[in-house]
């Protein structure tokens, strides 16, 4: 892959991100309800006071001007103060984001580790009992609501068996210096193996709750693309070369079959970042999802606005990463 093309592709993201910021700005601006009224609440205020606040917040300027102001601030990471926390939005989000990223990454890894081998196996053992059980299992995984599945896991592993903690990220006893904010990494950096195990025990159930529905989809995708690839001439030719079955399936077929899996995994990861509000709430996971839920209920618009923009940017970037992975998997695909 040539660096020039890579830079060109990154430059190509700018219009997309610009479009996203326009939409986010319009959504917030055009949402019914006057922020000035909300801020002043029920208190009796004079029109002069109201106008002063409006001027203060820049709301008296034309919309186009306000957009560029918003854009300029967004680029610098300034989204104003959180109404509730009375602190800069970027700080509040920055505190919560690592927990969500950590949860998402663990869920992504778990789902890939579950889905790819099972999908390959289901394709190789097509129409056997294994394949049929896999089909039913993945159907169940796709159709089960995440919060319900999470509660089931808590009931079984935490309440009944007592193997894993019910909620939270780590026991109170553990003191870990903040480096990345991701506890699995920070505990290892601090050389605290006991805390690492503790963090891993906490993350397992929420990550599994997120991972299983995703694994179900990824398994189906892997299975069907694998079935198609297994019929390809190059798989037959690889077999004719006398290669081991493991190499024929695990390398020749799988590398070609993974492209649809990567696409879906990228899209699903994007929706994991946004969609784990429920799971974070169920497991008391102090991440971005829960922050946004709280912000929505308390009409903490600056937080919501920044989070929506963040989700959108993440989604765009994930798709970009998927594009990069395609070229690694299939050299015929040019950036």
């Amino acid at each position: 892959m040539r660096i020039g093309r890579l830079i060109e592709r990154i430059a190509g993201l700018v219009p997309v991100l610009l479009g996203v910021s326009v939409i986010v700005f319009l959504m917030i601006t055009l949402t019914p309800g006057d922020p000035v009224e909300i801020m002043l609440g029920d208190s009796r205020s004079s029109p002069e006071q109201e106008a002063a606040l409006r001027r203060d917040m820049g709301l008296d300027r034309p919309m186009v001007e306000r957009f560029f102001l918003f854009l300029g601030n967004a680029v610098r990471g300034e989204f104003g103060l959180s109404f509730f926390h009375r602190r800069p939005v970027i700080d509040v989000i920055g505190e919560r984001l690592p927990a969500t990223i950590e949860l998402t990454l663990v869920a992504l890894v778990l789902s890939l580790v579950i889905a790819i081998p099972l999908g390959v196996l289901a394709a190789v053992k097509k129409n056997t009992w294994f394949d049929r059980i896999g089909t039913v299992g993945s159907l169940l995984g796709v159709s089960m609501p995440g919060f319900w599945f999470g509660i089931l896991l808590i009931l079984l592993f935490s309440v009944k068996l007592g193997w894993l903690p019910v909620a939270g990220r780590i026991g109170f006893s553990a003191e870990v210096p903040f480096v990345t904010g991701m506890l699995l990494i920070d505990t290892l950096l601090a050389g605290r193996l006991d805390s690492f195990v503790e963090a891993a025990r906490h993350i397992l159930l929420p990550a599994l709750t997120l991972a299983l529905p995703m694994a179900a989809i990824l398994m189906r995708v892997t299975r069907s693309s694998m079935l198609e690839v297994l019929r390809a001439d190059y798989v037959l030719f690889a077999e004719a070369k006398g290669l081991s079955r493991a190499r024929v399936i695990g390398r020749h077929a799988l590398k070609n079959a993974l492209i649809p899996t990567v696409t879906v995994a990228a899209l699903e990861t994007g929706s994991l970042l946004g969609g784990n509000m429920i799971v974070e709430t169920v497991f008391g996971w102090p991440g971005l999802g829960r922050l946004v839920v709280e912000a929505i209920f308390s009409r903490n618009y600056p937080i919501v606005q920044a989070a929506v923009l963040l989700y959108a940017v993440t989604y765009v970037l994930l798709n970009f990463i998927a594009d990069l992975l395609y070229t690694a998997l299939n050299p015929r695909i040019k950036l």
Partner: protein
Amino acid sequence: MTAAAGPLLLVEGLTTEFATRGGLVRAVDDVSLRVEAGECLGVVGESGSGKSMTFLSVMGLVRPPGRVSARRLMFDGTDVLALDEAGKRALRGRDIAITMQDALTALNPAFTVATQITEVLIAHNRAASMGEARIKAEEMMRLVGIPAAASRLDDYPHQFSGGMRQRIMIATALACRPRLLIADEPTTALDVTIQAQVLDLIADLRRELGMSVVLITHDLGVVAEHADRVMVMYAGQVVEDGPTATIIDRPAHPYTRGLIDCMPNLETLDRPVHPIPGQVPSPLDLPPHCRFFDRCERAGPQCRVPVALLPLSPDHGVRCIRAEGAAHG
């Protein structure tokens, strides 16, 4: 490997069946053949006549729901039927290699040509290290006539032209210097100008490496030029086999004659070619009698019987009861 007396490849009673929704399809029906050491056997027939399937069956590359059975399958004195899966795998690529019709689909788009050639050498312990395997791969690429082979090792298949890709596939197949090369329609996917080059390359390599070649094609012209013996297949059966000169000059089966008559020829361009009327019977609905019956100009009431492959002479067999000199059975 001991060089046993007798043919390099001996096949008797090879049958390949597929259970389909419409019923049992017998793609290869009781085929017997042999390939001598150093010989080139031409296999001719229309699409669907079972010629490719015959040799995929020989190599053990037929996938379920396909079922292969044979009375005998000997390679260089080894009973292939008695080998386990690992034994058969060791033969594939090392002793028996195949090239496929279209190199574009046969080479894996996701791997460099170096990877695809070296992995054969490594799988069959023909190279002790990756470095040695790369040197041998480069040698093979030079042998098949890839210009600037060393600099092209790390290119991907799509970066080569059609003719060059075909050469790379041949290089891959021949990496372990196999005793038998099955060339399945090696020229069908190529431009006419490149076709002759690839065929000459296979002929040269055959001499150089002393290997036997099975040349599967629907082009009798190619066979006339390159094969020592010819086997003509129709609807899963061998309908005629014998020395190339005999088959071309005195075809005994009406189908073989039909194939020769519909060959365009520079000397007889003024004469119209004669296509064979009708089409191959559906494999799901094969007649119990001679399978060529419906398309045969010479068919008569006595042809409504199953016909066996009968010898016209010790080295010439034909599946037609009206062929002169055939011992009627």
